[in-house]
Protein backbone atom coordinates (compact mmCIF):
# COMPACT_ATOMS: atom_id res chain seq x y z
CA UNK A 1 0.00 0.00 0.00
CA UNK A 2 2.88 2.36 0.76
CA UNK A 3 5.97 2.59 -1.40
CA UNK A 4 8.99 4.84 -1.03
CA UNK A 5 11.42 4.82 -3.90
CA UNK A 6 14.82 6.45 -3.92
CA UNK A 7 13.80 9.20 -1.51
CA UNK A 8 16.33 11.92 -0.83
CA UNK A 9 15.53 14.55 1.77
CA UNK A 10 17.06 16.89 4.29
CA UNK A 11 16.87 20.14 6.15
CA UNK A 12 18.45 23.21 4.58
CA UNK A 13 22.03 22.20 3.75
CA UNK A 14 21.94 18.97 5.66
CA UNK A 15 20.98 15.92 3.65
CA UNK A 16 19.53 13.21 5.88
CA UNK A 17 18.07 10.61 3.54
CA UNK A 18 20.18 9.20 0.72
CA UNK A 19 17.83 7.25 -1.48
CA UNK A 20 15.51 5.39 0.85
CA UNK A 21 13.30 2.69 -0.63
CA UNK A 22 10.84 0.73 1.42
CA UNK A 23 7.31 -0.57 1.29
CA UNK A 24 4.52 -1.50 3.65
CA UNK A 25 1.89 -4.00 2.54
CA UNK A 26 -1.79 -4.07 3.44
CA UNK A 27 -2.23 -4.87 7.13
CA UNK A 28 1.48 -5.43 7.64
CA UNK A 29 3.49 -4.52 10.72
CA UNK A 30 6.84 -3.21 9.56
CA UNK A 31 9.64 -1.93 11.77
CA UNK A 32 12.25 0.63 10.83
CA UNK A 33 15.20 0.37 13.16
CA UNK A 34 18.54 2.06 13.37
CA UNK A 35 20.73 4.26 15.52
CA UNK A 36 20.09 7.87 16.53
CA UNK A 37 20.24 10.30 13.66
CA UNK A 38 20.00 7.62 11.00
CA UNK A 39 16.93 9.26 9.44
CA UNK A 40 14.08 7.26 10.97
CA UNK A 41 12.00 10.21 12.04
CA UNK A 42 12.80 12.04 8.82
CA UNK A 43 11.45 9.08 6.88
CA UNK A 44 8.18 9.28 8.82
CA UNK A 45 7.99 13.03 8.24
CA UNK A 46 8.37 12.39 4.53
CA UNK A 47 5.49 9.91 4.55
CA UNK A 48 3.19 12.15 6.54
CA UNK A 49 4.04 15.12 4.36
CA UNK A 50 5.56 17.31 7.05
CA UNK A 51 8.73 17.28 4.97
CA UNK A 52 8.93 17.04 1.19
CA UNK A 53 11.50 14.84 -0.58
CA UNK A 54 14.07 16.56 -2.79
CA UNK A 55 14.12 13.50 -5.06
CA UNK A 56 12.36 10.16 -5.29
CA UNK A 57 8.72 9.29 -4.88
CA UNK A 58 6.26 8.35 -2.16
CA UNK A 59 3.17 6.48 -3.25
CA UNK A 60 0.16 5.34 -1.26
CA UNK A 61 -2.21 2.94 -3.03
CA UNK A 62 -0.55 4.09 -6.21
CA UNK A 63 -1.26 7.80 -5.59
CA UNK A 64 1.72 10.09 -5.35
CA UNK A 65 2.01 11.92 -2.02
CA UNK A 66 4.75 14.23 -3.26
CA UNK A 67 2.52 17.26 -3.61
CA UNK A 68 -0.07 16.52 -0.95
CA UNK A 69 -0.11 18.69 2.18
CA UNK A 70 -0.10 16.85 5.53
CA UNK A 71 -3.79 17.34 6.20
CA UNK A 72 -4.69 15.71 2.87
CA UNK A 73 -2.44 12.76 3.60
CA UNK A 74 -4.29 12.19 6.87
CA UNK A 75 -7.53 12.21 4.92
CA UNK A 76 -6.11 9.60 2.56
CA UNK A 77 -5.57 7.27 5.51
CA UNK A 78 -2.11 7.78 7.01
CA UNK A 79 -1.84 8.94 10.61
CA UNK A 80 1.35 9.69 12.46
CA UNK A 81 2.00 9.48 16.16
CA UNK A 82 4.91 11.89 16.61
CA UNK A 83 7.77 11.14 18.96
CA UNK A 84 6.80 11.94 22.53
CA UNK A 85 3.14 11.91 21.52
CA UNK A 86 2.76 15.67 21.26
CA UNK A 87 -0.64 15.58 22.82
CA UNK A 88 -2.40 18.87 23.47
CA UNK A 89 -1.66 19.20 27.16
CA UNK A 90 -3.99 22.12 27.76
CA UNK A 91 -7.04 20.25 26.48
CA UNK A 92 -9.03 17.44 27.98
CA UNK A 93 -8.45 13.84 26.94
CA UNK A 94 -11.73 13.79 25.07
CA UNK A 95 -10.94 17.02 23.21
CA UNK A 96 -7.67 15.48 22.11
CA UNK A 97 -9.54 12.51 20.71
CA UNK A 98 -12.08 14.75 19.02
CA UNK A 99 -9.26 16.58 17.29
CA UNK A 100 -8.09 13.23 16.01
CA UNK A 101 -11.36 12.92 14.11
CA UNK A 102 -10.89 16.26 12.42
CA UNK A 103 -11.10 15.18 8.81
CA UNK A 104 -14.50 15.03 7.14
CA UNK A 105 -14.21 11.28 6.65
CA UNK A 106 -13.37 10.61 10.29
CA UNK A 107 -16.02 12.93 11.69
CA UNK A 108 -18.86 10.85 10.32
CA UNK A 109 -18.01 7.88 12.50
CA UNK A 110 -16.57 9.74 15.41
CA UNK A 111 -18.80 8.26 18.12
CA UNK A 112 -18.19 4.64 17.17
CA UNK A 113 -14.54 5.28 16.74
CA UNK A 114 -14.24 6.85 20.16
CA UNK A 115 -15.94 3.84 21.71
CA UNK A 116 -13.40 1.61 20.03
CA UNK A 117 -10.49 3.70 21.27
CA UNK A 118 -11.94 3.64 24.79
CA UNK A 119 -12.20 -0.12 24.50
CA UNK A 120 -8.57 -0.35 23.50
CA UNK A 121 -7.50 2.06 26.23
CA UNK A 122 -9.99 1.97 29.11
CA UNK A 123 -7.72 4.33 31.02
CA UNK A 124 -8.51 7.09 28.58
CA UNK A 125 -12.22 6.76 29.21
CA UNK A 126 -11.68 7.02 32.96
CA UNK A 127 -9.76 10.22 32.38
CA UNK A 128 -11.74 11.66 29.53
CA UNK A 129 -12.56 14.96 31.25
CA UNK A 130 -9.11 15.38 32.72
CA UNK A 131 -6.59 17.78 31.27
CA UNK A 132 -4.20 15.80 29.09
CA UNK A 133 -1.21 17.49 30.72
CA UNK A 134 -1.99 15.63 33.95
CA UNK A 135 -1.61 12.19 32.39
CA UNK A 136 1.31 9.90 33.14
CA UNK A 137 3.84 9.06 30.46
CA UNK A 138 2.16 5.80 29.48
CA UNK A 139 -1.27 7.41 29.37
CA UNK A 140 0.05 10.19 27.19
CA UNK A 141 1.37 7.69 24.71
CA UNK A 142 -1.98 5.89 24.74
CA UNK A 143 -3.73 9.17 24.11
CA UNK A 144 -1.41 9.99 21.22
CA UNK A 145 -2.08 6.61 19.62
CA UNK A 146 -5.80 6.82 20.33
CA UNK A 147 -5.90 10.28 18.81
CA UNK A 148 -4.19 9.03 15.67
CA UNK A 149 -6.62 6.10 15.45
CA UNK A 150 -9.56 8.51 15.53
CA UNK A 151 -8.64 9.56 12.01
CA UNK A 152 -9.43 6.01 10.81
CA UNK A 153 -6.00 5.37 9.36
CA UNK A 154 -5.21 2.44 7.13
CA UNK A 155 -1.58 3.00 7.93
CA UNK A 156 -0.35 4.10 11.34
CA UNK A 157 3.11 5.63 11.68
CA UNK A 158 4.55 5.22 15.16
CA UNK A 159 7.63 7.19 16.15
CA UNK A 160 9.35 5.71 19.20
CA UNK A 161 6.22 4.66 21.10
CA UNK A 162 8.40 3.17 23.83
CA UNK A 163 10.36 6.36 24.34
CA UNK A 164 10.53 7.33 28.01
CA UNK A 165 8.43 4.42 29.21
CA UNK A 166 9.35 2.02 31.97
CA UNK A 167 10.26 -1.47 30.73
CA UNK A 168 7.02 -3.04 31.88
CA UNK A 169 5.05 -0.35 30.07
CA UNK A 170 7.07 -0.90 26.92
CA UNK A 171 6.01 -4.51 26.84
CA UNK A 172 2.36 -3.56 27.21
CA UNK A 173 2.72 -0.86 24.60
CA UNK A 174 3.98 -3.40 22.09
CA UNK A 175 1.11 -5.73 22.90
CA UNK A 176 -1.30 -2.93 22.14
CA UNK A 177 0.41 -2.14 18.88
CA UNK A 178 -0.01 -5.76 17.91
CA UNK A 179 -3.67 -5.61 18.85
CA UNK A 180 -4.20 -2.50 16.73
CA UNK A 181 -2.42 -4.18 13.84
CA UNK A 182 -4.72 -7.18 14.16
CA UNK A 183 -7.66 -4.81 13.62
CA UNK A 184 -6.51 -4.41 10.03
CA UNK A 185 -4.40 -1.29 10.47
CA UNK A 186 -0.99 -1.47 8.86
CA UNK A 187 1.78 -0.15 11.12
CA UNK A 188 5.15 1.33 10.34
CA UNK A 189 7.05 1.33 13.60
CA UNK A 190 10.18 3.34 14.21
CA UNK A 191 12.08 2.13 17.24
CA UNK A 192 15.37 2.33 19.05
CA UNK A 193 14.32 -0.62 21.12
CA UNK A 194 15.55 -2.89 18.34
CA UNK A 195 15.02 -6.29 19.88
CA UNK A 196 11.42 -5.64 20.87
CA UNK A 197 10.64 -4.07 17.53
CA UNK A 198 12.14 -6.95 15.54
CA UNK A 199 10.31 -9.52 17.64
CA UNK A 200 7.04 -7.73 16.98
CA UNK A 201 7.39 -6.92 13.30
CA UNK A 202 6.64 -9.18 10.37
CA UNK A 203 9.26 -7.37 8.32
CA UNK A 204 11.87 -4.82 9.17
CA UNK A 205 14.33 -2.41 7.61
CA UNK A 206 17.61 -1.35 9.11
CA UNK A 207 18.57 2.22 8.38
CA UNK A 208 22.00 3.74 8.84
CA UNK A 209 23.25 7.18 7.80
CA UNK A 210 20.18 7.75 5.69
CA UNK A 211 20.44 4.50 3.75
CA UNK A 212 18.62 1.20 4.07
CA UNK A 213 21.33 -1.33 4.91
CA UNK A 214 19.25 -4.36 5.75
CA UNK A 215 15.84 -5.79 5.08
CA UNK A 216 14.09 -8.98 6.01
CA UNK A 217 11.67 -10.68 8.33
CA UNK A 218 11.96 -9.61 11.95
CA UNK A 219 13.29 -13.02 12.98
CA UNK A 220 15.86 -13.10 10.22
CA UNK A 221 17.22 -9.70 11.17
CA UNK A 222 17.34 -10.72 14.81
CA UNK A 223 19.79 -13.45 13.96
CA UNK A 224 21.63 -11.32 11.41
CA UNK A 225 25.19 -10.97 12.63
CA UNK A 226 25.77 -7.27 12.00
CA UNK A 227 22.45 -6.34 13.54
CA UNK A 228 23.21 -8.47 16.56
CA UNK A 229 26.59 -6.92 17.11
CA UNK A 230 25.45 -3.37 16.39
CA UNK A 231 22.23 -3.20 18.37
CA UNK A 232 21.72 -6.19 20.53
CA UNK A 233 25.14 -6.46 22.11
Amino acid at each position, binding site marked *: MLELEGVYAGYKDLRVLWGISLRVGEGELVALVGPNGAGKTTTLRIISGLLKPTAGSVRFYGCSLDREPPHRIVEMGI*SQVPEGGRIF*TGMSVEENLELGAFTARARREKEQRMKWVYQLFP*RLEERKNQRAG*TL*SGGERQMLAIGRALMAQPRLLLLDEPSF*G*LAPILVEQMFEMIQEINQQDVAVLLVEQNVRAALELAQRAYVIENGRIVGEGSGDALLSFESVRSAYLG
Partner: protein
Amino acid sequence: MTAKKGISLALLVAGVAALWLVPSMGVSDSLLNLLILMFIYTMLASSWNILGGYTGQVNLGHAAFFGLGTLVARILYTGGRPLFLALLAACVVPVAFSMLIGIPAFRLRLRGDYFTIGTLALSQILYITIGNVLPKITYLPIADIQNYQLGPRYHIILASALFTIGVAYALVKSRLGLGMVAVRENEDAAESLGINAFAHKLLALAVSAFLGGLTGGAYAYYQTSYYFNYTFSPPWSLEPVTMTFIGGVGTIHGPVIGAVFFVLLKEWLVMKVGEYHLIIFGVLFLLVVLFLPGGLVEAWERIRRVFTHRPAGKIVLSPSAEGSDLSGNSLASERKEVPMI
Protein backbone atom coordinates in the same frame (compact mmCIF):
# COMPACT_ATOMS: atom_id res chain seq x y z
CA MET B 1 -28.98 22.38 30.34
CA THR B 2 -28.07 22.15 34.00
CA ALA B 3 -29.57 24.44 36.60
CA LYS B 4 -26.24 26.17 37.07
CA LYS B 5 -25.96 26.91 33.38
CA GLY B 6 -29.52 28.18 33.38
CA ILE B 7 -28.75 30.60 36.18
CA SER B 8 -25.61 31.83 34.41
CA LEU B 9 -27.56 32.38 31.21
CA ALA B 10 -30.32 34.25 33.07
CA LEU B 11 -27.73 36.46 34.76
CA LEU B 12 -26.09 37.15 31.42
CA VAL B 13 -29.39 38.15 29.79
CA ALA B 14 -30.28 40.34 32.78
CA GLY B 15 -26.87 42.00 32.66
CA VAL B 16 -27.13 42.76 28.96
CA ALA B 17 -30.68 44.08 29.39
CA ALA B 18 -29.53 46.31 32.25
CA LEU B 19 -26.66 47.64 30.13
CA TRP B 20 -29.07 48.28 27.29
CA LEU B 21 -31.36 50.32 29.55
CA VAL B 22 -28.61 52.43 31.15
CA PRO B 23 -29.08 55.48 28.85
CA SER B 24 -32.77 55.71 29.74
CA MET B 25 -31.99 55.80 33.46
CA GLY B 26 -30.99 59.44 33.37
CA VAL B 27 -27.34 58.81 34.14
CA SER B 28 -24.60 61.34 33.46
CA ASP B 29 -22.88 61.56 30.09
CA SER B 30 -19.55 60.82 31.65
CA LEU B 31 -20.80 57.44 32.83
CA LEU B 32 -22.09 56.70 29.33
CA ASN B 33 -18.75 57.73 27.88
CA LEU B 34 -16.96 55.46 30.32
CA LEU B 35 -19.17 52.53 29.37
CA ILE B 36 -18.69 53.22 25.67
CA LEU B 37 -14.94 53.18 26.16
CA MET B 38 -15.28 49.83 27.92
CA PHE B 39 -17.27 48.44 25.01
CA ILE B 40 -14.76 49.67 22.45
CA TYR B 41 -11.82 48.30 24.40
CA THR B 42 -13.65 45.02 24.90
CA MET B 43 -14.06 44.74 21.15
CA LEU B 44 -10.43 45.65 20.60
CA ALA B 45 -9.20 42.99 23.03
CA SER B 46 -11.68 40.29 21.96
CA SER B 47 -10.83 40.73 18.29
CA TRP B 48 -7.10 40.52 19.04
CA ASN B 49 -7.64 37.46 21.23
CA ILE B 50 -9.03 35.35 18.36
CA LEU B 51 -5.71 35.40 16.55
CA GLY B 52 -3.29 36.09 19.40
CA GLY B 53 -4.99 34.15 22.17
CA TYR B 54 -6.70 31.23 20.52
CA THR B 55 -4.48 30.66 17.50
CA GLY B 56 -1.19 31.68 19.09
CA GLN B 57 -0.14 34.12 16.36
CA VAL B 58 0.99 37.23 18.20
CA ASN B 59 -0.09 40.29 16.26
CA LEU B 60 1.63 43.53 17.31
CA GLY B 61 -0.07 45.55 14.61
CA HIS B 62 -3.71 45.34 15.52
CA ALA B 63 -3.82 49.15 15.14
CA ALA B 64 -3.65 48.60 11.39
CA PHE B 65 -7.03 46.83 11.41
CA PHE B 66 -8.53 49.21 13.94
CA GLY B 67 -7.13 52.25 12.12
CA LEU B 68 -8.31 51.10 8.70
CA GLY B 69 -11.74 50.53 10.23
CA THR B 70 -11.87 54.09 11.55
CA LEU B 71 -10.53 55.54 8.30
CA VAL B 72 -12.94 53.73 6.00
CA ALA B 73 -15.96 54.26 8.23
CA ARG B 74 -15.12 57.91 8.79
CA ILE B 75 -14.65 58.75 5.12
CA LEU B 76 -17.80 56.93 4.05
CA TYR B 77 -19.92 58.23 6.89
CA THR B 78 -18.84 61.87 6.66
CA GLY B 79 -19.24 61.54 2.88
CA GLY B 80 -22.93 60.90 3.47
CA ARG B 81 -23.12 57.13 3.12
CA PRO B 82 -25.45 55.26 5.47
CA LEU B 83 -23.93 54.16 8.76
CA PHE B 84 -24.52 50.48 8.12
CA LEU B 85 -22.62 50.60 4.84
CA ALA B 86 -19.79 52.54 6.47
CA LEU B 87 -19.48 49.97 9.26
CA LEU B 88 -19.60 47.06 6.84
CA ALA B 89 -16.82 48.53 4.73
CA ALA B 90 -14.87 49.19 7.93
CA CYS B 91 -14.95 45.43 8.53
CA VAL B 92 -14.15 44.27 5.01
CA VAL B 93 -11.21 46.53 4.14
CA PRO B 94 -9.03 45.40 7.08
CA VAL B 95 -9.69 41.77 6.12
CA ALA B 96 -8.33 42.42 2.64
CA PHE B 97 -5.36 44.24 4.13
CA SER B 98 -4.68 41.46 6.64
CA MET B 99 -4.16 39.02 3.79
CA LEU B 100 -1.14 41.07 2.70
CA ILE B 101 0.73 39.89 5.75
CA GLY B 102 -1.20 36.70 6.46
CA ILE B 103 -0.81 34.87 3.18
CA PRO B 104 2.95 35.29 2.78
CA ALA B 105 3.75 34.78 6.46
CA PHE B 106 1.57 31.70 6.92
CA ARG B 107 2.23 30.23 3.47
CA LEU B 108 5.97 30.37 3.94
CA ARG B 109 5.46 28.96 7.41
CA LEU B 110 7.19 31.95 8.92
CA ARG B 111 6.44 31.15 12.47
CA GLY B 112 6.15 33.27 15.54
CA ASP B 113 8.50 36.20 15.44
CA TYR B 114 8.40 36.80 11.70
CA PHE B 115 4.66 37.23 11.66
CA THR B 116 4.80 39.41 14.76
CA ILE B 117 7.46 41.69 13.33
CA GLY B 118 5.64 41.81 10.00
CA THR B 119 2.42 43.01 11.64
CA LEU B 120 4.32 45.59 13.68
CA ALA B 121 6.06 46.88 10.55
CA LEU B 122 2.89 47.08 8.47
CA SER B 123 0.99 48.97 11.15
CA GLN B 124 3.86 51.44 11.53
CA ILE B 125 4.01 51.94 7.77
CA LEU B 126 0.30 52.74 7.77
CA TYR B 127 0.67 55.03 10.79
CA ILE B 128 3.37 57.11 9.09
CA THR B 129 1.79 57.06 5.65
CA ILE B 130 -1.65 58.13 6.87
CA GLY B 131 0.00 60.87 8.93
CA ASN B 132 1.67 62.23 5.80
CA VAL B 133 -1.22 61.82 3.39
CA LEU B 134 -4.01 62.94 5.74
CA PRO B 135 -2.39 65.29 8.23
CA LYS B 136 -5.63 67.07 9.17
CA ILE B 137 -8.12 66.62 11.94
CA THR B 138 -11.31 64.83 10.99
CA TYR B 139 -14.68 66.11 12.23
CA LEU B 140 -18.10 64.62 12.12
CA PRO B 141 -20.46 66.55 9.79
CA ILE B 142 -21.71 69.80 11.36
CA ALA B 143 -25.29 68.56 11.48
CA ASP B 144 -24.12 65.48 13.37
CA ILE B 145 -22.22 67.53 15.91
CA GLN B 146 -25.18 69.81 16.47
CA ASN B 147 -27.46 66.87 17.12
CA TYR B 148 -24.82 64.67 18.73
CA GLN B 149 -26.48 62.31 21.14
CA LEU B 150 -24.79 59.66 23.17
CA GLY B 151 -27.85 57.40 23.47
CA PRO B 152 -28.02 55.99 19.94
CA ARG B 153 -24.23 55.75 19.76
CA TYR B 154 -24.21 53.90 23.04
CA HIS B 155 -26.68 51.35 21.69
CA ILE B 156 -24.92 50.81 18.38
CA ILE B 157 -21.57 50.36 20.08
CA LEU B 158 -23.03 48.05 22.71
CA ALA B 159 -24.63 45.99 19.94
CA SER B 160 -21.29 45.86 18.09
CA ALA B 161 -19.54 44.69 21.25
CA LEU B 162 -22.14 41.97 21.81
CA PHE B 163 -21.81 40.95 18.18
CA THR B 164 -18.02 40.76 18.57
CA ILE B 165 -18.21 38.60 21.68
CA GLY B 166 -20.89 36.46 20.05
CA VAL B 167 -18.79 35.84 16.95
CA ALA B 168 -15.74 35.05 19.06
CA TYR B 169 -17.77 32.65 21.19
CA ALA B 170 -19.36 30.88 18.23
CA LEU B 171 -15.99 30.57 16.51
CA VAL B 172 -14.03 29.14 19.40
CA LYS B 173 -16.79 26.71 20.32
CA SER B 174 -16.90 25.40 16.76
CA ARG B 175 -14.75 22.75 15.16
CA LEU B 176 -12.71 25.51 13.57
CA GLY B 177 -12.03 26.96 17.02
CA LEU B 178 -10.82 23.59 18.25
CA GLY B 179 -8.53 23.42 15.23
CA MET B 180 -7.21 26.90 15.97
CA VAL B 181 -6.30 25.93 19.52
CA ALA B 182 -4.63 22.77 18.22
CA VAL B 183 -2.52 24.90 15.87
CA ARG B 184 -1.57 27.12 18.79
CA GLU B 185 -0.62 24.19 21.01
CA ASN B 186 1.47 22.37 18.44
CA GLU B 187 1.39 23.10 14.76
CA ASP B 188 3.09 19.89 13.64
CA ALA B 189 0.85 17.73 15.76
CA ALA B 190 -2.18 19.60 14.43
CA GLU B 191 -1.07 19.03 10.86
CA SER B 192 -0.48 15.37 11.55
CA LEU B 193 -4.13 15.10 12.59
CA GLY B 194 -5.38 16.47 9.32
CA ILE B 195 -5.80 20.06 10.43
CA ASN B 196 -4.90 22.57 7.75
CA ALA B 197 -2.83 24.96 9.85
CA PHE B 198 -2.50 27.52 7.08
CA ALA B 199 -6.26 27.76 6.57
CA HIS B 200 -6.96 27.96 10.30
CA LYS B 201 -4.42 30.71 10.88
CA LEU B 202 -5.69 32.66 7.91
CA LEU B 203 -9.29 32.32 9.05
CA ALA B 204 -8.41 33.49 12.55
CA LEU B 205 -6.55 36.44 11.07
CA ALA B 206 -9.49 37.35 8.84
CA VAL B 207 -12.02 37.21 11.69
CA SER B 208 -9.66 39.16 13.94
CA ALA B 209 -9.22 41.84 11.25
CA PHE B 210 -12.96 41.92 10.55
CA LEU B 211 -13.85 42.53 14.19
CA GLY B 212 -10.88 44.86 14.70
CA GLY B 213 -12.22 46.87 11.77
CA LEU B 214 -15.69 46.90 13.31
CA THR B 215 -14.13 48.26 16.49
CA GLY B 216 -12.59 51.03 14.42
CA GLY B 217 -15.91 51.73 12.73
CA ALA B 218 -17.59 52.05 16.11
CA TYR B 219 -14.87 54.40 17.29
CA ALA B 220 -15.14 56.56 14.17
CA TYR B 221 -18.88 56.87 14.68
CA TYR B 222 -18.42 57.77 18.35
CA GLN B 223 -15.58 60.32 18.30
CA THR B 224 -16.41 63.83 17.13
CA SER B 225 -12.87 64.70 16.09
CA TYR B 226 -9.36 63.23 16.01
CA TYR B 227 -6.31 63.14 13.76
CA PHE B 228 -6.64 60.55 11.00
CA ASN B 229 -3.39 58.83 11.94
CA TYR B 230 -4.15 58.77 15.67
CA THR B 231 -6.09 55.52 15.38
CA PHE B 232 -3.07 53.86 13.72
CA SER B 233 -0.73 54.77 16.58
CA PRO B 234 1.11 52.05 18.54
CA PRO B 235 -1.06 52.14 21.69
CA TRP B 236 -3.94 50.69 19.66
CA SER B 237 -1.69 47.72 18.94
CA LEU B 238 -0.27 47.29 22.40
CA GLU B 239 -3.32 47.94 24.55
CA PRO B 240 -5.33 44.97 23.24
CA VAL B 241 -2.39 42.73 24.09
CA THR B 242 -2.12 44.20 27.59
CA MET B 243 -5.86 43.94 28.22
CA THR B 244 -6.11 40.39 26.95
CA PHE B 245 -3.22 39.19 29.07
CA ILE B 246 -4.43 40.99 32.17
CA GLY B 247 -7.92 39.54 31.72
CA GLY B 248 -6.99 36.04 30.59
CA VAL B 249 -5.56 35.14 27.22
CA GLY B 250 -7.37 32.51 25.18
CA THR B 251 -10.68 32.81 27.02
CA ILE B 252 -13.91 34.52 26.01
CA HIS B 253 -14.47 36.49 29.21
CA GLY B 254 -10.79 37.35 29.74
CA PRO B 255 -10.67 40.23 27.25
CA VAL B 256 -13.96 41.61 28.61
CA ILE B 257 -12.70 41.59 32.19
CA GLY B 258 -9.34 42.91 31.06
CA ALA B 259 -10.93 45.76 29.13
CA VAL B 260 -13.16 46.85 32.02
CA PHE B 261 -10.25 46.69 34.42
CA PHE B 262 -7.97 48.49 31.98
CA VAL B 263 -10.39 51.34 31.25
CA LEU B 264 -11.13 51.96 34.92
CA LEU B 265 -7.49 51.83 35.97
CA LYS B 266 -6.37 53.93 33.01
CA GLU B 267 -8.94 56.66 33.65
CA TRP B 268 -7.90 56.82 37.26
CA LEU B 269 -4.17 56.72 36.56
CA VAL B 270 -4.34 59.34 33.84
CA MET B 271 -5.93 61.71 36.34
CA LYS B 272 -3.33 60.89 38.98
CA VAL B 273 -0.08 60.48 37.11
CA GLY B 274 -0.72 61.48 33.50
CA GLU B 275 1.53 59.89 30.91
CA TYR B 276 3.32 57.80 33.53
CA HIS B 277 0.37 55.42 33.37
CA LEU B 278 2.13 53.83 30.40
CA ILE B 279 4.99 52.71 32.63
CA ILE B 280 2.60 51.33 35.21
CA PHE B 281 0.75 49.30 32.59
CA GLY B 282 4.05 48.08 31.17
CA VAL B 283 5.12 46.79 34.57
CA LEU B 284 1.69 45.31 35.24
CA PHE B 285 1.81 43.50 31.91
CA LEU B 286 5.21 42.00 32.71
CA LEU B 287 4.06 40.92 36.15
CA VAL B 288 0.98 39.22 34.74
CA VAL B 289 2.94 37.39 32.04
CA LEU B 290 5.54 36.23 34.56
CA PHE B 291 3.43 35.34 37.55
CA LEU B 292 -0.16 35.01 36.42
CA PRO B 293 -0.13 33.78 32.82
CA GLY B 294 -3.86 33.10 32.96
CA GLY B 295 -4.62 36.67 34.00
CA LEU B 296 -7.48 37.76 36.24
CA VAL B 297 -9.53 34.76 35.11
CA GLU B 298 -6.89 32.47 36.57
CA ALA B 299 -6.60 34.58 39.72
CA TRP B 300 -10.33 34.25 40.25
CA GLU B 301 -10.15 30.48 39.75
CA ARG B 302 -7.39 30.22 42.32
CA ILE B 303 -9.25 32.32 44.86
CA ARG B 304 -12.43 30.34 44.36
CA ARG B 305 -10.54 27.13 44.84
CA VAL B 306 -9.12 28.31 48.15
CA PHE B 307 -12.55 29.23 49.47
CA THR B 308 -14.49 26.23 48.25
CA HIS B 309 -11.70 23.78 49.13
CA ARG B 310 -12.60 21.99 45.97
CA PRO B 311 -10.02 20.00 44.11
CA ALA B 312 -9.26 22.10 41.06
CA GLY B 313 -11.50 21.20 38.13
CA LYS B 314 -9.50 19.69 35.35
CA ILE B 315 -6.10 20.74 36.49
CA VAL B 316 -5.60 18.50 39.48
CA LEU B 317 -3.71 15.27 39.27
CA SER B 318 -6.07 12.54 40.23
CA PRO B 319 -4.49 10.13 42.69
CA SER B 320 -4.34 7.27 40.24
CA ALA B 321 -2.50 9.38 37.70
CA GLU B 322 0.44 9.40 40.05
CA GLY B 323 1.63 6.08 38.80
CA SER B 324 0.03 3.24 36.99
CA ASP B 325 0.69 0.92 34.13
CA LEU B 326 -1.26 0.86 30.93
CA SER B 327 -4.03 -1.36 32.17
CA GLY B 328 -4.58 0.60 35.34
CA ASN B 329 -2.58 -1.31 37.91
CA SER B 330 -0.84 0.85 40.44
CA LEU B 331 2.79 1.33 39.70
CA ALA B 332 3.82 4.17 41.91
CA SER B 333 7.54 3.93 41.32
CA GLU B 334 7.38 3.84 37.55
CA ARG B 335 5.87 7.18 36.76
CA LYS B 336 7.73 8.93 34.03
CA GLU B 337 6.91 12.00 32.05
CA VAL B 338 7.35 11.90 28.31
CA PRO B 339 9.24 15.04 27.43
CA MET B 340 7.32 17.11 24.93
CA ILE B 341 10.02 17.70 22.35
